């Protein structure tokens, strides 16, 4: 796109740009407003949350109807300016993130009763939200760095919101991880800029594809992926995640586990698929797959051994991220075609399902914790039984985490296994199977507490503002994504004819 044509189609650009820009700017503005007017924070925050979610839906609809959107800010030459772009994958993740975000916002209304906590929460949360949307929609490598930092800072600050020693320790570690990781990423960006002189992902992609594969590409990729792998808590670099996620307040845990980690993963995926595909071969993907397998097994095992509910959920996140990495060797080994499309969609589907499910899980876990005063799994019996809706949310989210039908991750796992068998990499099937068994074990370790000799609950829902969002998210992860994942293919612009063989 030349500058002229950009100017010419400005009107159309504007219209298309609006939802993208709003999805990022609304929460940013909201953050500013809630900072400035702390008393009104919950009200303003909720309004902004609704608006942002609306913008995200608008974005998705726009991508659905018109295909990928590429928007150069400022009307400058694309190599010079920063671009926003929303393709199917970004739109899907934005939609998920914002729906989850909306639910978290509603939940937070009920969760943060003390005004000073709420005042701290809202601006940071909205900043985090802005960073997430910015990340998903970014088309510029350096802008991604800024977004990563914003995300990292906001997330660490939110995670430490309880102010306990554990929380601060864990989140300081998280902050440092984020910093070192994003600096490493930035180093990779700097190398790329050295070689190609541009930061726009699209331009870089064609430049890399046009060039011979060079060691510098390899070095840049290594640095960027290394940084992002740390941020996405890929085994064994997940060491920071469980304490940080487990010590955060429930809505924050939900956001961290469901969204923030996903953002880093999304970047790896983008780099891997969009930018560096020409220089990749199977072995590098296999390395990621192996680490993913380690994550699946170790994370699930640790979740099974965890004493506390939120720690369990955090380790479960480690495992779930591992599943996503299992797709890399399969994608590398599958030639373009319906099979690869299916794998890609399955990967996304698992990410989305995990987003919804984990958020729902953490929110429900938070509620249990609030109610019981603790979250030691072994002593949760009565509480779980007193809160049927919450337990139900845990169960639904849990079955999505396990990958039981009809959840979205079931479809994802089905296609994952199918891909593994088709490419002859059957060992991932073994990993997936073991992981599923372990996850079933840890989920039902929790659920079995709900069956005790405790008194009967009077009604299904006891605290609608807190319970309904969790339940809705869990329900989405199970029913909507599991039974109607077809549109995802359309959104991704993939050949929807399917066909396994």
């Amino acid at each position, binding site marked *: 796109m030349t500058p002229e044509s950009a100017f010419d189609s400005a009107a159309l650009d504007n219209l298309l740009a609006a939802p993208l820009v709003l999805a990022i700017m609304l929460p940013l503005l909201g953050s500013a407003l809630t900072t400035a007017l702390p008393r009104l924070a919950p009200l303003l925050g909720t309004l902004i949350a609704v608006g942002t979610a609306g913008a995200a839906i608008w974005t998705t609809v726009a991508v659905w109807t018109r295909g990928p959107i590429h928007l150069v800010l400022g009307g400058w030459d694309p190599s010079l300016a920063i671009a926003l772009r929303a393709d199917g994958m970004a739109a899907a993740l934005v939609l998920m993130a914002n729906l989850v975000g909306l639910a978290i916002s509603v939940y937070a209304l009920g969760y943060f009763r003390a005004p000073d906590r709420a005042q701290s929460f809202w601006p940071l949360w909205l900043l985090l939200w802005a960073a997430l949307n910015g990340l998903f929609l970014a088309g510029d490598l350096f802008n991604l760095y800024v977004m990563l930092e914003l995300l990292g800072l906001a997330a660490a600050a939110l995670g430490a919101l309880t102010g306990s020693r554990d929380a601060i320790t864990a989140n300081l570690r998280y902050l440092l991880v984020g910093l070192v990781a994003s600096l490493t990423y930035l180093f990779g960006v700097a190398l790329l800029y050295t070689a190609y002189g541009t930061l726009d992902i699209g331009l870089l992609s064609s430049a890399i594809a046009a060039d011979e594969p060079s060691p510098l590409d390899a070095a840049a990729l290594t640095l960027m992926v290394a940084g992002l792998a740390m941020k996405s808590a890929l085994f064994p670099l997940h060491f920071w995640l469980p304490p940080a996620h487990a010590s955060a307040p429930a809505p924050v845990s939900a956001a961290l586990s469901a969204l923030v980690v996903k953002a880093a993963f999304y970047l790896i995926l983008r780099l891997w698929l969009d930018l560096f595909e020409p220089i990749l071969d199977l072995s590098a993907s296999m390395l990621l797959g192996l680490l993913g397998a380690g994550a699946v097994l170790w994370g699930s095992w640790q979740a099974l051994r965890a004493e506390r509910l939120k720690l369990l959920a955090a380790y479960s996140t480690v495992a779930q991220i591992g599943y996503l990495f299992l797709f890399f060797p399969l994608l590398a080994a599958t030639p373009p075609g319906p099979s690869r499309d299916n794998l890609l969609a399955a990967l996304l589907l698992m990410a989305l399902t995990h987003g919804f499910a984990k958020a729902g899980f953490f929110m429900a876990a938070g509620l249990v914790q609030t109610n019981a005063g603790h979250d030691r799994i072994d002593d949760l019996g009565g509480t779980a*039984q007193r809160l*049927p809706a919450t337990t139900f949310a845990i169960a639904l989210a849990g079955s999505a985490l396990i990958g*039981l039908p*009809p959840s979205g991750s079931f479809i994802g796992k089905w296609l994952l296994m199918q891909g593994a068998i088709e490419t002859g990499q059957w060992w991932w099937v073994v990993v997936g199977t073991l992981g599923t068994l372990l996850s079933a074990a840890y989920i039902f370790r929790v659920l079995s507490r709900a*069956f005790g000799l405790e008194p009967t609950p009077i009604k*299904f*829902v006891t605290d609608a503002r807190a319970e309904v969002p969790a339940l809705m998210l869990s329900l989405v992860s199970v029913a909507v994504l599991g039974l109607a994942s077809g549109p995802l293919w359309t959104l991704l612009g993939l050949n929807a004819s*399917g066909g396994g063989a």
Partner: protein
Amino acid sequence: MNNSLATLLPGLIVLSSMVPGAMIFLVREESHLLRTVLNLFGAVLKLLLVGVMVWAVWQGNELESRLVIAPGLELVLHADALSVLFATLSTVLWLITTIYAIGYLEHSPNRSRFFGFFSLCVSATVGIALAGNLLTFVIFYEILTLATYPLVAHRGTPEATRGAKIYLAYTLTGGLLLLVGAVWLRTLTGPVDFVEGGVLSGMPPELHGQLIAIFALLLAGLGVKAAIVPLHGWLPQSMVAPAPVSSLLHAVAVVKAGAFGIVRVVYDVYGVTFASELGLLAVLSVLASVTIVYGSLMAMTQDGLKTRLAYSTVSQVSYIALGASLLGPVATIGGLVHLVHQGIMKITLFFCAGNYAETLGVHKVSQMDGVGRRMPWTTLAFTVGALGMIGIPPIAGFVSKWYLGLGAVEAEQHWVLLILAASTMLNAGYFLPILYRAWFRPLPEAWPKEHVFDTRFETMGALLWPPVITAVLCLVAGLLAAAPFSPLEWAQLIAKREYGL
């Protein structure tokens, strides 16, 4: 038949219990009436819809609901003669069991939870019955696992949670193996529906090794629920569940689902002739035979009435697998008709066991002296069920046994007669002593824990009538076996279609 109705009906049948089930969760615990209305509404509505379906399939109509959940992955609900057989069984028995359960749980806690899952359980079972491809089957198979888990754990005692965990460990592992098998198969075949006569016979010989491995996986997965030795360990453990649940597990849902799945795989996926060529049937028949004998032997050693019945189920359900494992329409008829016959007979027995426990506190065979005096009608129903299990004509069980025997001879597997003979002797060995105690031994001084109901009947009406009705059904199914619309007629219809006669 109206076209839109034809495409909706199977789906509606599944939903007819799922929706009321979901609503029941929301019902306040003390709203006894509302819950009962919802329960019965769902049960009766489903029965009516199934009635329409029976009529339609009899007329040779194709009923099929399809839902694309992802490209290439379709949820197919298809009504053929086989599905109708199983669906009708579950629906009829569900109605009766619902009435029974309402009476059984009259004063116990957590009824909304119970009945909610109860309805889901039946929805899943009917979904299994109507599943038109392996994917759909797997989905409902897993949902069934999930829906029954809370029922098994319902009592909340430590034994109950333990039993439920063991149940879950077995069934989830099984489900996973099934999943792997299904996925693997799909990579070879692409998306295929169940087709009468099977779909795999055209596969090239070099794939036969894989097909055998897949069969092993599928069989292992289905064998867990069908309680084929050595995968039966969960079944006696899950006897901690309330009696209606045991009835449901043993007669209608779980065990049957496994056996039904074996039938589906053998006939509609592999094709019985092809399976025989691969040598799979021989393995299956040996496994089934071992199970039949082993289950009976174990049953003889049990003093607990329900565990004895549980082992009896282990033994009896393998009749179905045995029927599937013998090449020839007659054996097929025997296996299929036993699907129904075992259901009504075993549910009668469990109802009765529940009545003894609930009315007299009698849980063990050794406590059953003289119960025939105190509860003659229940004991009469029990007698019918037990004699039917032994295979005494003209009760339904004989019909299955006859066709199995004849089918075995037809398939030139004369040794199966020996198995049938041994099974008959062993069944008599563990059932007749019960009858002897019940009818011929004097009453004890006092019952372990007698519960006086406000009724002139021997026990509460809601408890008394269900076993009496099912006992009558056992007799009718036997006495009118050759009449139109009898289970036997349906089984013959199915066999005719499977063998293309």
